[in-house]
């Protein structure tokens, strides 16, 4: 079972629709027990990093931590990717999962913010998420905070500065862009995630 974690941030209709189009039968839930039973977990999200406080307050963070440690494939989207880091200067009081120790920060001044639109991906080799997706493919972004490029970054995008468009370490994965809005490239990535062996 694929659990899509509902933490009351924004509109999840598109994510559910895209997962169905990619061949899944996802369950949208804010129940930690559903998350614990899931073979794969997706944390979508648009909006403010402060919304991730819901995960802590409703026992979802503990459930995700437990399952991720057990090897369940996890995909964070947009704010869901940022949550994999220690936190974000957008809401410093909310701690992320800290799978990666860095902080997410706002884009440096000089460019229009938010970063909205289709931007290209410089894809590193051996990524399972990007298997079969050509380097230089485009994805749809909309965000004002970004994660730094780190060792486990598997796709880099430039917007005034390079930032992490996708990250992957074992079963822990995240994308800053919206695969559900990134046409065939996005559906391909979702299919890759769905085809990973469930834990």
């Amino acid at each position: 079972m694929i659990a899509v974690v509902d933490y009351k941030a924004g509109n999840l209709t598109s994510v559910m629709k895209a997962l169905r189009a990619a061949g899944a039968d996802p369950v949208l839930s804010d129940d930690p027990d559903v998350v614990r039973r899931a073979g794969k977990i997706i944390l979508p999200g648009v909006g403010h990093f402060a919304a991730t406080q819901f995960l802590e307050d409703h026992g979802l963070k503990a459930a995700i931590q437990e399952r991720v440690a057990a090897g369940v494939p996890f995909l964070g989207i947009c704010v869901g990717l940022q949550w994999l880091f220690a936190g974000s200067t957008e809401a410093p009081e909310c701690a992320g999962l800290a799978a990666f120790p860095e902080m997410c920060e706002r884009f440096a001044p000089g460019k229009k913010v938010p970063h909205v639109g289709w931007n290209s991906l410089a894809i590193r080799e051996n990524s399972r998420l990007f298997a079969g997706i050509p380097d230089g493919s485009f994805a749809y972004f909309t965000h004002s905070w970004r994660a730094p490029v780190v060792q486990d970054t598997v796709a880099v995008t430039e917007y005034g500065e390079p930032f992490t468009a996708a990250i992957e370490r074992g079963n822990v994965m995240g994308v800053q862009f919206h695969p559900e809005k990134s046409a065939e490239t996005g559906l391909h990535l979702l299919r890759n995630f769905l085809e990973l062996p469930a834990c």
Partner: protein
Amino acid sequence: MLTRRIIACLDVNAGRVVKGVQFVDLVDAGDPSELAARHAAAGADEIVLLDITATHENRGTLIDTVRRTALRLFVPFTVGGGIRTAEDAAAVFDAGADKVSINSAALARPELIGEIGAKFGAQAVIVAIDARRAKDGAPVEHAEVYVAGGRKPTGRRVVEWAREAEQRGAGEILLTSMDSDGTRAGFDCELTAAVSAAVQIPVIASGGAGNAHHFTQVFREGQADAALAASIFHFGIADVRALKEELRRDGIPVRLPC
């Protein structure tokens, strides 16, 4: 590199796509879900559906149209027309829209921008501005905001309202030049540049597209982040891919292949 977006716009009246010249003389142009899917397959970066007559009685039809259209779309999808409250917006999001475009209602009650943004995120709120230039070579700053489908002047200046919309939390500005709309004689680049320079958020230029060169002009001279066109695609003048190939030859960054 961030590309310039080409947005296909569907003006919808009672469940059908229509196109007029300077907001009147409507001609039937087809089924919204079919046209949206066709534009997306041809490389449209985004789809906008505007309910141009937006009456209370038509809300059910609109929601149904949005649901049918969203089902087949995996690119960003914006819906506008008749969205007056955060509840109206919620219904449209629930049917599958990613963003809403608000116009008259935002002018009548600017708090609406922040209310929708608080619940769905600023990226989901586009403030649409219908602009008309003052007559006889008056400066571009005097361009005035119109509402009610372009029928009613508001006395507000376009640049100033765009700034206020940004401050109140709009994620993007959709700027339509009513003087250019439907003429196929080119975008109002001067007006677009004035608004683009006044705000930090993306500006979508609309009104007047007739050929690929017009898009190059509005991206270069107008500093538009995205450009919207309707009739240029519907009647087979060009599809999005052909347009993008021309733009790429002009040195404009676009999403290709798509």
